[in-house]
């Protein structure tokens, strides 16, 4: 046991962190290593670069400099807990872990510590119900919205009816991948289609048996809830069995450049949901290059600027910055606390004018958060990959999900959480 003691005393000397509290602290729980690193890197680059842009161009948010505290989670919940505990003492205003597993970990912990969590487009869907999840936000859309919109698009492609059709869901066998199942089950009853569930285990390189089953059962559409290497393997496998790519629709986490490029031309026509516009044809990227990348201040090597996941990370940071701005406006102070940040997020409104002033006109759907609604309007568009040009482009407008299906599910799931944890409803 001497060994333990030496390690601990060595550790004790390492923890002498002096918290500097004169800034706005945004932890970046990123993953640049491990099986999901290829997707985690562009997101983390975008997230961290946007805060750098705020500091360099605007001198911070409302005059307060931003400090990003980085911590590597490797998409692992145990490391995520370590990261959360080590960063929360530094005055963290908001957590965005980019992992459904870590989000589930943080929901009770952050709620007890009074720190908001924003899981844009991932995490626990029923956290949309702000009456029960006071500290958790998941705008602009949830997995259940995504499932509904994907079904809607499939219905549009089959001339308005899915009667007797067969839809396969290829999903990451984890909390993340299982999220849409419940919604799809209800939708399959409503629209009378058959649902096939095909789980793929972490990390997703081994999918032969799933695609064999697809070849045998011949579903009309395939939806995919994948992440990391699973995406590109699935697209390659779909190409191998000559599945029509326009009938293969991924969630917004299965629609980035590094998912489709490994399959080459075979990926042409693959579709995915999108919660924001692809490409770098927006004024903000000029600023980003001028103030951050060209000065050598970028978090990464700059090669990811303008990719889908980079924009996604930047969008997450934009929501955080706008939330902080609205918090500063509500409370009239520039140095905000985590609970003020929460108020700011709850009052956040993204309008066309606001997006244009950020330098992203028409980049994302507009929404307004409220006490009851922490999940936005739940709209997304469908984007399609053009392998020849190497670009994603929108083929539909933003569509809204079928709230008549989703709202009862959200109410049921959140009230179950409330009764398990003795939470009384707010906002009444």
């Amino acid at each position, binding site marked *: 046991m001497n060994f333990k003691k030496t390690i601990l005393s060595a550790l004790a000397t390492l923890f002498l962190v002096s918290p500097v509290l004169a800034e706005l602290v945004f932890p970046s729980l990123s993953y640049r290593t491990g099986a999901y690193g290829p997707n985690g890197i562009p997101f983390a680059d975008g997230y961290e670069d946007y805060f750098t842009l705020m500091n360099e161009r605007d001198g911070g948010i409302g005059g307060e400099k931003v400090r990003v505290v980085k911590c590597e989670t490797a998409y692992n919940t145990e490391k995520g807990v*370590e990261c959360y505990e080590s960063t929360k003492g530094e005055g963290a205003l908001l957590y965005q872990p980019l992992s459904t597993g870590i989000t589930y970990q943080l929901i009770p912990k952050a709620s007890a510590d009074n720190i908001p969590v924003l899981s844009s487009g991932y995490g626990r869907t029923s956290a949309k119900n702000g009456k029960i999840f006071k500290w958790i936000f998941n705008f602009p859309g949830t997995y259940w919205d995504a499932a509904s919109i994907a079904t809607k698009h499939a219905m549009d492609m089959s001339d308005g009816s899915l009667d007797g059709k067969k839809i396969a869901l290829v999903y990451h066998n984890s909390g993340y991948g299982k999220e849409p199942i419940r919604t799809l089950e209800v939708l399959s009853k409503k629209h009378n289609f058959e649902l096939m569930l095909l789980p793929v285990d972490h990390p997703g390189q081994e999918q032969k048996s799933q695609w064999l089953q697809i070849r045998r059962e011949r579903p009309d559409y395939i939806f995919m809830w994948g992440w990391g290497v699973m995406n590109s393997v699935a697209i390659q496998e779909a190409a191998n069995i000559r599945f029509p790519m326009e009938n293969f629709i991924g969630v917004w986490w299965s629609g980035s450049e590094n998912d489709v490029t490994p399959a080459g031309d075979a990926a042409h026509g693959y579709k995915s949901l999108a919660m924001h516009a692809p490409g770098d044809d927006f004024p903000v990227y000029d600023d980003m290059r001028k103030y951050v990348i060209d000065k050598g201040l970028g978090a990464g090597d700059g090669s990811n600027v303008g990719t889908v996941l980079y924009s996604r990370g930047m969008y997450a940071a934009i929501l955080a910055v706008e939330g902080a701005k609205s918090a500063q406006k509500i409370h009239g102070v520039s140095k905000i606390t985590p609970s003020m940040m929460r108020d700011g997020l709850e009052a956040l409104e993204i309008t066309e004018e606001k997006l244009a002033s950020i330098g992203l006109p028409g980049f994302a759907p507009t929404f307004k958060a409220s006490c009851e609604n922490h999940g936005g309007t739940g709209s997304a568009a469908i984007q399609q990959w053009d392998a020849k040009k190497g670009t994603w482009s929108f083929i539909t407008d933003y569509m809204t999900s079928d709230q008549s299906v989703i709202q009862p599910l959200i109410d049921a799931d959140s009230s179950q959480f409330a009764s398990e944890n003795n939470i009384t409803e707010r906002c009444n």
Partner: protein
Amino acid sequence: MLYREVGEFKTSYAQDSQTFPIKFDKYRYYFVVLVGLLFVPFVINDYWANAVFLPFLIYAIASLGLNILTGYCGQVSLGTGGFMAVGAYASYKLMTAFPDLNILIIVLLSGVITAFVGTLFGLPSLRIKGFYLAVATLAAQFFLIWLFNKVGWFYNYSATGMITSPDRSFGNFLITGPNATPASKYLFCFFFVFLLAWIARNLTRGKIGRSWMAIRDMDIAAEIIGVNPLIAKLSAFAISSFYVGIAGALFFSVYLGAVEVTEAFSIQKSFIVLFMVIIGGLGSIFGSFAGAAFMVLLPVALKNLLVLQFGWPVDIAAHFEFIIIGGLIIFFLIVEPHGLAQLWNLLKQKLRIWPFPY
């Protein structure tokens, strides 16, 4: 000088068989327990509890359990992750089915349930040995994970298959859930570690432990001298699984609070615990602790050293962590194939004759 046996005469069998024959060791042991019991709970904060002490203590229980099976009884097991999952899901089902049941009883019952499951999967050990048994336990690992994924009853049909531990308290102190204080969580785990390590130490030097070691050293010879392999092997599986089950229950309910079976209890977990046992030292109680410390505390210490002290980028630090820990594992296995415990024993022998070696 300080560390010696000279002048310590044994006049009874009890003295002869004591765990710490050297005074210095004995006092050091008392010191560690007293510090752990009376000092740490008063200074511990969230970070130290959730990132350092809880994982260390819980992995120590798991590696004690595996050490009983692999180190003492010689049965290689790759099912540790699966058995931890049994403990975790048993505690979840018990917590949600019997809200008034004390958390202490829940954790113990989870251990008992895991012991039963472990014995079941230990049955093939009566017919197969070595690598073949490792493959059989590997099957247990995959089967159990598949089961907890497939059957909704185990996770109360939650939408994502995740299980979340509700608030449970021991007396007036919350043990599980986000509002539990770090000190109460720490003390709860410390109690289990102390108790289980004490039991393990006493089991391994009694009749049952000797029969395990006889089976490990040569099963045919053991049978000839009258050791019943059925009882020895199955008891090793049962007791080992009991420990691993308790570790799984604590891992889920006290440490993480929410787990997802494929991520938390994958084959990776089985390997990590096996590495702890091998690096710490097969067939050694101290080795279980040393191995757990090596695999749990070293990455955290390295991360803090590289990122906070040296200011390295987090991704480069994370890569270097792999390199350093991998290098250290190879180094230790080359220098001392019998693990850190043996290294410690050699050091003790040297200390005994210091400063006047022959």
